[in-house]
């Protein structure tokens, strides 16, 4: 009985930390300036550790793109040779207080969103979300988008954020967006509009030059996925302080690299529990099908880890079509998620789900006991490099991740 009580207490502590997180958008800065441990010739990527040899097609494409972006190679062929020779280090974003959607690739010159959790003082970083390079596209067009972010949009937003004293509080945006039908993963549209609306006057106030301002505002105002990078950084900032809470069985990380799906658990700091990444049950852009799809990829499951995304899909009518489309199903999925979580968020409530708080604290014990796996809604990349976004769908982590973690937990805590 004693250990059960310890687990309950530890889990309550973790839920408290997650729900009392207070994320603030501080700045947008080149990754090399802010991300700890990001060295000269390093590409950090989504998901658990993986070698170049084992990387999936789309993630390789994205890494090649970053190699070209940094100028470490001038052709894709050269880039591949460098990577195959091990000349460029590859490490998980998660080991560097960072996250990234899809291939999630970050290098020193790429600006990242800087979010601070004012409740616990730690910071987290996320790259921008876009529809080409992070899906494995290393064409000039894809690189062009990254360059605009590096040279124009990122610096403009950074200037604007300097004028907001103390940084831009994100909790109000998140609460309102969840009540406007967002789930902050594949439907961050409302949050993106709200963020764009907050940044625009700030950039004007900061005196951003008209050409840059116009270009940036056109981009932020028409980019439904603008907020995804920010929501992911918020999720990361909320969960990092939970790592190392002894006896806790709560999941602090769910992340995929297109080859493996990995989870980490609060009471088992520093350890990944991985299994082969699953295929996504999806809907596709014209001309594409399941046969073209790669496996599940991205750090964006950090949103589900803190109770957004698939965990509140019932409140996101626009995305219901992904899961069959009826309100009953949406409610059912949310109910299922409550069976595997520990508490709910007092601040983030979903009108369509009777204003229930988002479910927080995925408990590996409950997942294994009930057989109910967390629901993640996600975008789909091609299995080969060189393609943009293929579609969207639903995926669940492999049960093995949770069983491995549970076995390790029992062994570590002497059960």
């Amino acid at each position, binding site marked *: 009985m004693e250990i059960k009580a310890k687990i309950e207490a530890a889990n309550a502590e973790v839920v408290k930390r997650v729900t009392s997180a207070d994320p603030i958008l501080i700045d947008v800065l080149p990754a090399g300036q802010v991300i700890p441990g990001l060295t000269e010739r390093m590409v950090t990527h989504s998901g658990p550790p993986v070698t170049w040899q084992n990387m999936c097609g789309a993630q390789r494409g994205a890494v090649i793109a970053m190699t070209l972006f940094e100028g470490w190679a001038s052709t894709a062929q050269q880039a591949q040779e460098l990577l195959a020779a091990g000349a460029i280090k590859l490490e998980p974003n998660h080991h560097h207080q960072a996250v990234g959607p899809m291939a999630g690739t970050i290098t020193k010159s790429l600006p990242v969103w800087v979010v601070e959790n004012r409740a616990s003082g730690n910071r987290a970083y996320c790259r921008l979300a876009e529809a080409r390079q992070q899906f494995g596209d290393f064409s000039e067009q894809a690189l062009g988008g990254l360059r605009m972010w590096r040279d124009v949009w990122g610096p403009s937003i950074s200037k604007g954020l300097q004028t907001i004293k103390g940084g831009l509080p994100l909790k109000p945006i998140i609460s309102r967006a969840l009540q406007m039908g967002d789930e902050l993963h*594949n439907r961050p549209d409302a949050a993106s509009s709200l963020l764009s609306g907050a940044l625009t006057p700030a950039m004007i106030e900061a005196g951003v030059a008209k050409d840059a301002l116009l270009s940036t505002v056109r981009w932020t105002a028409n980019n439904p996925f603008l907020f995804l990078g920010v929501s992911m950084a918020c999720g990361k900032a909320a969960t990092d302080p939970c790592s190392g809470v002894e006896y806790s069985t709560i999941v602090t990380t769910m992340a995929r690299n297109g080859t493996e799906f990995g989870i980490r658990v609060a009471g088992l700091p520093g350890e990944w529990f991985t299994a082969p990444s699953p295929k996504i049950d999806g*809907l*596709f*852009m*014209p*001309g*594409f099908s399941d046969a073209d799809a790669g496996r599940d990829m991205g750090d964006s499951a950090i949103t589900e880890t803190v109770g957004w995304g698939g965990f509140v899909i019932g409140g996101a009518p*626009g*995305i219901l*079509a*992904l899961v*069959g*489309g*009826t309100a*009953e*199903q949406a*409610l*059912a*999925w949310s*109910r*299922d998620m409550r*069976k595997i979580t520990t508490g709910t968020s007092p601040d983030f409530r979903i009108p369509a789900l009777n204003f229930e708080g988002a479910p927080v604290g995925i408990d590996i014990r409950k997942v294994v006991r*009930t057989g109910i796996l967390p629901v993640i809604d996600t975008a789909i990349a091609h299995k080969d490099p060189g393609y943009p976004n293929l*579609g*969207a769908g639903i995926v669940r982590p492999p049960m093995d991740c949770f069983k491995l973690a549970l076995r390790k937990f029992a062994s570590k805590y002497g059960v």
Partner: protein
Amino acid sequence: MVTDHAIIQNQYFDSVFLMRVAKRISAAEGIEQAAAVMATAKNLEALAQAGFASAARGPAAPNDVIVALRATDSTHARAILDHLDQWLNREETPNSGTTVTTLSDALGVEPNANLAVISVPGEYAAREARLALEQNLHVFLFSDNVSLEDEVSLKQLSKERGVLLMGPDCGTAIIGGAGIGFANSVRRGPVGVIGASGTGLQEITTLVHRMGSGISHAIGTGSHDLTDAVGGVTSMQALDALDAEPNTKVIVLVSKPPGQVTLGRIRQRMASMSKPVITCFLGSSGLEEHWPHPAHDLTESASEAVRLAGVAPTLLPGSYPSVSSAVAEIGPHRRYVRGLFAGGTFCYQAQQIFREAGVTVHSNEPLSRSLKLADPYRSVGHSLVDMGADVFTVGRPHPMIDSTLRAQRVEAEARYPETAILLLDFVLGFSASADPVGDLAPAIKRAREQAEGQGNRLLVLSSVCGTELDAQGFNRQIQALEQAGVTVFPSAVDASRFAAAVAIELGKVGR
């Protein structure tokens, strides 16, 4: 193959929604591929790349929807494109929402529940029963293959919590007029029954009803309750409960012979009870003398109970030939009784009756080990087979639900020239087959034809356990049996006695 498209102007749909529409259209008759997108530049490019060049040319604005498809012919294409409204508005068939999956969830929804009915596979049964008992719920535990160790521990827990553990291996109960598991519809009345056997409870309760009285409660105890290992925990609780319960005037206790120690405990308890207790310990002879109201068999249990409750038992109707005319009907070389029982207790009781009549019978579940059939599928001499035994039911439904194996056995027995009599039971009520007689009738017909084909008869004898309140229709079932040339006896005891008497005659030299 034709390609075609339609444009709906000035209507916005979410891209994911449109992808699902495209998926549904693709599955329609005559459609090979479909795409549905808002006409943004990027999407037009995607359409072109997907082979929908003319759709990509538009003209369409970003606020318009384009639906493009490839179809076997233009009729199929237009069938979709001319009715896009339907595709864009149609609701999906709703999936049922998640249901309750755990006991604690269930108690959250129904906090006043007082009974857990558990019929999960044996390896999970003890655990589920424990969870329920720990919540102070009574438990009806249908599952069998619970270890003795678990059973003893669970019975102890039920005793501590002051709740009934009906089981493990409990097939039947009737509480407050409601039947649980395999049970019959019977009227309420003053007779309370406590039993270790499901079919035993079914036979007694239905006979009590047909004799004109009724049942207060029938409490199943599980098949091992009166062994010394378990010590009669549930039987004792049930005796106490029925003694105190105002509607019960007389109690019947039915079981295989109890363990010695438990026997003593029961007798001691009975001495201080305020109501008469009829004891029926099937398979034991000689115990009767020491008990105040001993009943020899299930039928006597019922008639004694009804009598002690102050009701003159209605004689059960039934017309059947005399033993000698039955013997005369049977072909000259035929000698043996082959009983094929769906109810294990009927098989057991029949063995007792045959033994008392001095007729040796074999069985797959014999009264004494030396009479065990070497091959349960092959009868030897007189054989009474429990078709509900594990060997027959692994991986298949019980014979009270599914008659496939029993039908096959009926025909097999008929093919042996030595078979004289088929002795069958039919059990009605909840959870039993919708038409137990109908299920077996074709096989019985073929069996009788088989015998007639050899120029002589075999006799088919039966009893039906049920009441006119059961859904299967007691009288309809009897009629169907008679139409199939089967003789119907008022109770299993009557059928067994008759079969034994005929067996004795068939065994006489120079018949």
